[in-house]
């Protein structure tokens, strides 16, 4: 398996294959950053603005990663997987939902908060946009754990449950955010020139740590 592309969103920057694609220096906070960056880098998609902060982060990272990849032309849609790890689940929007029910006097639970109170919904948003029907899984880990992620993704490849995989770390706890996605492919078709490196734990950590 090869890592053929990476996308990294952190510190108000968007990096592709380790190179800065966009640095949003003027954004005043995360909400401002994610929306203005999306408008700058991605084609219009009104549903983006209904997403919670975690899904916006995941979606932006996936759009950047998948730009010009045309994955569903290369692989059957049911063989493109999404395996994501994070620490805080959907805690940011969980707190928003909790706020709507804290007071019986002002008790208005909102379906558009609640629907996002599950970390795998970010996979759903990406699959809907890209028509991916493949393996989906969210693993929870205190820190980015490339050993566990590698083992799980590798396992699914080995038992032929995927031919391509978007995998990585998408974390938002309301204070800090980071998205690191890798495109991992079983083999490249004749004519494909791109590759970064082997899909292996040391390589994953090097890319994640921007070394």
């Amino acid at each position, binding site marked *: 398996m090869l890592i053929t592309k990476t996308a990294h969103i952190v510190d108000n920057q968007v990096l592709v294959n380790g190179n800065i694609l966009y640095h949003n220096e003027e954004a005043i906070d995360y909400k401002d950053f994610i929306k203005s960056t999306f408008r700058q880098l991605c084609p219009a998609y009104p549903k983006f603005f209904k997403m919670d902060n975690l899904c916006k982060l995941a979606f932006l990272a996936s759009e950047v990663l998948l730009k010009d990849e045309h994955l569903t032309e290369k692989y059957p849609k049911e063989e493109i997987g999404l395996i994501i790890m994070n620490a805080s689940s959907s805690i940011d929007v969980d707190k928003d939902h909790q706020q709507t029910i804290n007071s019986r006097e002002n*008790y208005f639970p909102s379906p558009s908060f609640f629907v996002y109170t599950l970390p795998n919904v970010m996979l759903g948003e990406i699959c809907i946009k890209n028509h991916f029907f493949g393996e989906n899984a969210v693993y*929870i880990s205190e820190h980015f754990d490339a050993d566990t992620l590698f083992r799980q993704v590798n396992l699914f490849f080995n038992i032929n*449950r995927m031919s391509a995989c978007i995998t990585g770390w998408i974390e938002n706890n309301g204070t800090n955010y980071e998205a690191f996605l890798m495109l991992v492919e079983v083999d490249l078709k004749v004519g494909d020139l791109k590759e970064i490196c082997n899909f292996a734990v040391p390589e994953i950590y090097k890319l994640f740590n921007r070394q």
Partner: protein
Amino acid sequence: MHDVYVSGENVITSLGFTIEENIENIRNDVTGVRLRGDKKLFPEDFFASIIDSQQLDREFHSPEHKPDFTRFEKIMICSAEKALAENTHIDASSEKTIFVISSTKGNIDLLEEDKKILFEPDRVYLWKSAEIIAEYFGNKNKPVVISNACVSGVLAISTASEMLRSGWYNHAVVIGGDIVTEFVVSGFQSFKSLSFGPCKPFDLNRDGLNLGEGAGTILMTTRKEALPKGAIIKVLGGACNNDANHISGPSRTGEGLMLAVTRAMKNSGLTAEQIDFISAHGTATPYNDEMESKAFSAAGLCHVPLNSLKGYFGHTLGAAGIIESAIAIQGMKQNILFKTMGYSELGVTEKISVVDRLTEKTQKYIVKTASGFGGCNAAVILEKL
């Protein structure tokens, strides 16, 4: 590649703290779904399946030298402890044993104003509860934590089985759990997806789901010699995928679930004709059950008897896949199919075969399915040797 066997189960629900108690109640048409008037959970009365808190306190004591546990952690630990007590071949503390935890919201009730101060802030995170649970059993491996909406349980079983099949570990302790909280009740109410009575899976008059809390444990091993006497159950292939349709509404065609089921069968080397029973998701919402009927029909499984257990313990979210698989395993061992509590008249487009009474049937291969928010679907195949 190793064969993977089920070496024990436990479930904790409103119907009891052992598999035997739960099965006894199911056989006697007893449901744990009741009208609840707990104003802390919701301003109005609602139907749900709640674990008896007093019994939980009797069954689980915080050892004096160990710290307090949350309600969620108690039911998880209690369930695993009971399963392990009956299956002493599995050493929970061994480095060859892995804990796989499945939950949608874990300790989410710790976000409530009056509960925030009871535990440290990190306790609300699933990685923290999972650590505490594994530590309780003296296991030093980092637990694998799966949080994938209502398919978490089925995905946990499938993932654990593949980890064992690949030889990484000899044993797995797969625990799934979720509690009924104000957080979840209010959310499902805002979706208008709660039934006004006990739920009716696949029925013409179904009007929504009941929430339930529960924990389930499935012990797995590659060591055939470690199995208890009696029928042997193997875990075969599985699959999980996305509908790519809508984040909360199931696909109208059922294509995603159909693909998950057909891929699980393919990964197990089976065809539709070989499947003897389907333990379906059957939440009793108008759309879910309709979608499932379409999926099963498209997969060539209309003739296969199926049931939903949601009428007995409600929808236990992250526990559902584990609890319902454990009950289905008992059905395989006892050669019976349990009836779909709440069902009387078929109310879906496809002519699926809903089990409406306790039925004797030998089952060699069964499929357990689940579907959830975010458009996910999962299926796993079990075999009786």
